[in-house]
């Protein structure tokens, strides 16, 4: 399993806009690098990221080779009720990496 780090506030007030951070360890091999034998290293990147709150999509992103290795993303959401956040990355091979976090919203 990939090393995934998330940062979600411990709690939030209803209506607050909170910042979420998500980072995954991945080489994001661009397909433009050359190894010591002079051969091109095959491309292997994450192509898609999605953040869902109880199955509703909050934010998503399409990645191309111009995204750095170990991509970090900071984005926001409007907290309305307590629930589960799902962070999901899709690799070009179709493999999916997921991590969830609980969000507690004080009424």
């Amino acid at each position, binding site marked *: 399993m990939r090393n995934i780090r998330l940062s979600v506030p411990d709690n939030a007030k209803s209506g607050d806009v909170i910042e979420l951070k998500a980072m995954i360890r991945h080489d994001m091999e661009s397909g433009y*690098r050359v190894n010591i034998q002079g051969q091109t290293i095959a491309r292997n990147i994450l192509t898609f990221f999605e953040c869902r709150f109880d199955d509703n999509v*909050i934010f998503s*992103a399409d990645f191309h080779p*111009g995204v750095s290795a170990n*991509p970090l993303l900071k*984005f926001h959401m409007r907290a309305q009720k307590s629930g589960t956040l799902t962070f999901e990355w899709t690799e070009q091979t179709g493999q999916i990496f997921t991590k969830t976090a609980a969000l507690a919203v004080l009424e």
Partner: protein
Amino acid sequence: MTPIKRRDVLRISGGVAVSLTLLPKSAWADEPAMRKSIRDMFGDKPIQDGRVTLTIPTLSENGYSVSMNVEVESPMTENDYVTKLAIFSERNPIPLIAAYHFTPASGRARIASNIRLGGTQNVHAIAQMSDGSLWRASAKTFVTLAACVVL
């Protein structure tokens, strides 16, 4: 540690020289390629300056990881929000770096991420609003160590 052999140095530098000369010219994007990439995504609609703030360092020591901040002015309500934000590079082999999709539940159209840049250039951020209008910001950065070129 074993000393670096003359043979190895020749082999590596030979590989680099061959790969640089064999690269098809079209593989390296220039501005026309970026304009085509923008047209492919947004069509021929006019793009206005403003509403988008793109922050990247003026000097980037390492083109492999350049921190980037983009914020779009929008109330982010059901009727008026940012649907899409795309980042384009003038000099990367692939002009489109990333595209971000927002929803009214995002609350705020602001992202931070790290990108690769293949040399000193302008970076462009184009936002599409829910009414279909397009807004743009660009920023220049000097890249000391370019991604894609060094091994």
